[in-house]
């Protein structure tokens, strides 16, 4: 049996290598910083024959996702990537992909949204797509980006729901780190070829997504809502089987660090949650029983797993890299309070917004913020 290979690579290139390992058929693309190097790497792979896929350059992100939807409806395994305003421009077609039950996988490299312009990471772009019916992962390392894209294809194709794999611009996308590449035969065992139950086929014409009457429309919408919730056990199964085959584990619906006996729990997503492990160590050295709970899934929000993981009487410090406009604080805090209400009245939730537009979030800064929140 072949051994895994360790290379040094950036987050965006890790994503491109995962796409190659997933043996994707079609990749429509349009450049936007900080995602662009994913598309550049895939275009190179297609050009030099490393990846047997069709690369479709189009004139904007709305068309990117339209092409992705059409290719997926024709039965192809489809990938694309975007960031920030590119994702916002796709908004209408995001609904088409989920409502059409098309298992497209897309990376969104998180970047603050216009206006004013910024190039750097926050989480307003992906969280603003909450109600589009996509499953959303948020990743905290280069390796997790690679692993999650493969898990995302598996889950998407099992339940016919598109999956968005999010990770931070620059802090992950342009960060060079060790990356373990499992042997291709192991990946093929984990992710078998895509065999859709139904596809558009010129030899056997059928129509797709016609006007429906209210009762039919409501039935489709109910099925989508139910199936998004039903994806949770599939996400867990994908993480477990990926671990069984490759030995790698990033958590399933959630990831935790020093949580079991924690009295103070940091709650955050993406690269700041990786850095928070170091903040937790700093706080532990100061005698504070601190721990970390990172939702790896943002949608569906893993309510049951969060509720069962939180220690009794914990103070949860939600660190939001986004704004929940119209409410004080951020979106994650609102989601968390929603699931705790009536189920875990012992938990206190406190919230701060930080790191907007890529403001650097260091271990010392976040440890100090958590300490300050304890006195609030």
């Amino acid at each position, binding site marked *: 049996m072949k051994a895994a290979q360790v290379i040094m690579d950036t987050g965006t290139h890790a994503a491109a290598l995962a796409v190659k390992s997933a043996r994707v058929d079609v990749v429509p693309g349009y450049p936007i910083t900080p995602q662009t190097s994913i598309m550049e790497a895939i275009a190179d792979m297609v050009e030099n024959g490393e990846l047997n896929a069709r690369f479709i350059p189009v004139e904007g992100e709305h068309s990117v996702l339209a092409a992705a939807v059409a290719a997926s409806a024709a039965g192809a395994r489809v990938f694309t990537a975007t960031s920030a305003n590119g994702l916002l421009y796709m908004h209408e077609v995001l609904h088409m992909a989920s409502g059409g039950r098309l298992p497209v996988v897309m990376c969104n490299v998180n970047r603050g949204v216009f206006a004013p312009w910024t190039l750097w990471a926050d989480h307003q772009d992906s969280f603003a797509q909450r109600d589009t019916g996509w499953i959303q992962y948020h990743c905290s390392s280069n390796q997790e980006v690679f692993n999650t894209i493969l898990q995302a294809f598996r889950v998407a194709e099992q339940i016919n729901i598109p999956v968005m794999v999010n990770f931070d611009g620059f802090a992950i996308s*342009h960060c*060079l*780190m060790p990356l373990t590449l499992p042997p291709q035969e192991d990946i093929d065992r984990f992710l078998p070829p895509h065999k859709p139950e139904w596809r558009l086929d010129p030899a056997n014409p059928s129509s797709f997504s016609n006007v429906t009457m209210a009762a039919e429309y409501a039935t489709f919408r109910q099925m989508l809502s139910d199936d998004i919730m039903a994806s949770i056990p599939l996400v867990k199964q994908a993480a477990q089987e990926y671990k069984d085959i490759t030995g790698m584990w990033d958590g399933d619906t959630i990831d935790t660090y020093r949580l079991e006996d924690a009295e103070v729990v940091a709650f955050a997503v993406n690269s*700041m949650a990786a850095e928070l492990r170091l903040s937790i160590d700093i706080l532990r050295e100061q005698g504070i029983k601190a721990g970390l709970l990172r939702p790896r899934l943002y949608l569906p929000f893993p309510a049951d797993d969060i509720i069962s993981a939180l220690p009794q009487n914990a103070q949860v410090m939600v660190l939001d890299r986004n704004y929940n406009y119209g409410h004080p604080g951020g979106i994650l805090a609102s989601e968390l309070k929603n699931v705790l209400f009536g189920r875990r009245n012992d938990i206190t939730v406190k919230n701060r917004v930080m790191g907007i537009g890529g403001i650097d979030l260091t271990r010392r800064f976040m440890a100090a913020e958590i300490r300050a929140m304890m006195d609030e």
Partner: protein
Amino acid sequence: MLELRINGFGGQGSVTLAHLLAQAALENGEHGQALPFFGVERRGAPVRAAVRMSPTTIHAHSQCELPDYVVVMSEKLTKAAVSEGINEIGTVIINAPHAVAVEKHSTWQVDADAIAHEAGLFSADGPLINIPLFGAVCRVLNIPQNIMEQTILNKWPGSGERNLGAAGKAYHTVAQVNVKRAFSA
């Protein structure tokens, strides 16, 4: 975990230097990380990059605010680079034609411009100082010379004698400066 920050000007090859150092860590059996900060990209603008090396998985994803080492790509940047933050027992490595000492900090100096000139390493932006600086930083970090050379050969297979020669010369000529002399800008 060892933390290092590179301070330079756009076009000097700071990002490639950061990549080389992270790759040398892997070559040396450790974990490495290079995290450049991309500002508004233009030639001559101040740039910085974080480099980390650790025997265990690196979870940090921020810039280095209090690094153990600061690499100054151009002598002119010394004061600004150090005032951005450094561990109180941190070391400074400066590219300068003559000895420059930073107050309160152990300082090393290498003439990367002269070494690049001598080796014939040029781009449209000037001498390729990141190759000799890579050699100098490897020496200061006690990364073996064969690891340094293998890292260059892995990055540019068959790149040959000029790169290896320039990096090797810097490896052997980087010098610890007398720290008694106070820094004056």
